């Protein structure tokens, strides 16, 4: 229907955005009583997301004409942005920005690098940027969840942690079980994504491949590749975080610093 009214693709895109935003506004209106403080947050997030994705679309259109390795810089910029979003969620943890940057870079960077080296993901902007961004974004969410859960566990178990320290345990031993809980909680979504693949959801990338007229089976296989890559990156980044986090919430004398 829209195609008939707006034959120009760009105009159609703008109208599609507008309609989606109007429906979101309607939902905000409906939930506003139950979640009053969410309204502005959602509104700002919507606006921000729209502007950012337009900017990225413009940059991509520009980059597609240049050399393919510029994709690396786009992804590096995304990792930096992702780390600062993690900091917003987990800002109470000291020096969390460098922690998030290190773990996202280590997780997403090494797994993507390996995938490129093995030829599983081609070094082409048109594929590397969207796939890489999915990997980085999911790794970022995993980090936020890991840190949020870890902080919650620590604050709920200060007495147990300090009892362990008082018995001569190292900081790592004292928080071992809370690291495990955070690990598990943060990786559940990545695992569930794999589990529900195809049954509960057909992710965007596969939709894109199907829409672009390629074989649905190839789209399906590639989607599996991407979700598995996401899991590897998320898992590796959590591992890095679990090694770095203890020194950020304890003093060098193994005194618990995190109290709020």
């Amino acid at each position: 229907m829209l195609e008939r009214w707006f034959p120009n693709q760009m105009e159609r895109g703008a109208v599609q955005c507008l309609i989606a935003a109007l429906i979101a506004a309607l939902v905000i209106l409906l939930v506003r009583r139950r979640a009053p403080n969410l309204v502005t947050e959602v509104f700002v997030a919507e606006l921000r997301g729209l502007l950012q994705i337009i900017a990225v679309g413009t940059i991509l259109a520009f980059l597609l004409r240049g050399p393919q390795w510029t994709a690396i810089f786009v992804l590096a910029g995304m990792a930096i942005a992702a780390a600062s979003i993690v900091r917003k969620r987990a800002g109470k943890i000291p020096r969390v920005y460098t922690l998030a940057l290190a773990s996202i870079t280590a997780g997403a960077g090494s797994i993507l690098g390996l995938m490129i080296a093995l030829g599983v993901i081609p070094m082409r902007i048109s594929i590397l940027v969207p796939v890489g961004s999915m990997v980085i974004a999911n790794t970022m969410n995993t980090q936020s969840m890991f840190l949020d859960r870890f902080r919650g566990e620590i604050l709920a178990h200060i007495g147990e942690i300090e009892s362990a320290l008082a018995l001569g345990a190292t900081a790592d031993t004292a928080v071992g079980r809370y690291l495990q809980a955070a690990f598990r909680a943060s990786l559940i979504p990545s695992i569930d994504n794999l589990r529900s693949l195809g049954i509960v959801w057909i992710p965007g990338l596969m939709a894109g491949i199907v829409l672009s007229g390629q074989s649905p089976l190839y789209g399906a296989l590639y989607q599996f590749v991407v979700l598995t890559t996401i899991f590897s990156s998320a898992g590796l980044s959590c591992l890095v975080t679990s090694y770095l986090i203890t020194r950020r919430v304890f003093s060098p004398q193994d005194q618990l610093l995190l109290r709020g």
Partner: protein
Amino acid sequence: MNSTRYILECRNLGRELPSPQHRLLLRNVSFTLQQAEVLAVIGPSGAGKSTLLRLLNRLNEPTQGSVYLHGRDYREMPVLQLRRCIGMVMQRAYLFPGTVSENIVFGPAQQGKTMNPQQVDDLLARVGLEGYASRDALTLSGGEAQRVAITRALANEPEVLLLDEPTSALDEVSRDGVQSLLASLIRERRLTCVWVTHSLDQARAMANRVLALRAGEVEAIGTPGEILHA
């Protein structure tokens, strides 16, 4: 060294919160502790009693003065070794998930020492918890849990035991039981203790000396007779 006749010596100990608060929690606390001495620390809520104990086993860092263990500045010791030497029992038991036995062997296990089941059973029998070794630690009553917490601290064979109102979260019956248990353990093992209490009766019954804190400063220190007169 003239200070070695003391197990523990506290010189001008103090702690100020780091910026931006800069709040003074404790200032100029000095005392000495000999083998088998029990020092009661009393004072109103918020006086800094827990802060003092947490400085003694270095769960917090002093910003003024220091603590000397057998005459040696405790900041020169590895902190894990220090905390094994200075055990602590808190107001609540804070047992770890698992069995009673797993809680008790935790301390020695941190030094790579294993306790055999017989040793655990003997310790438990001593604190009135015969046959509790395989019980789930998180289903115990308040009094039982606190006895396990005391046993857990003693399993490390500490030279000094810090007690932070160990009976104040308990009901009256288990409070008396835990207090007399601690009294007999202190006597028979010649334990050296710093015992924070808000009960003057408890201080009178347990202590050789009493330290009264108020607003983070020493108000008085002396024998129970001098401090708790009338």
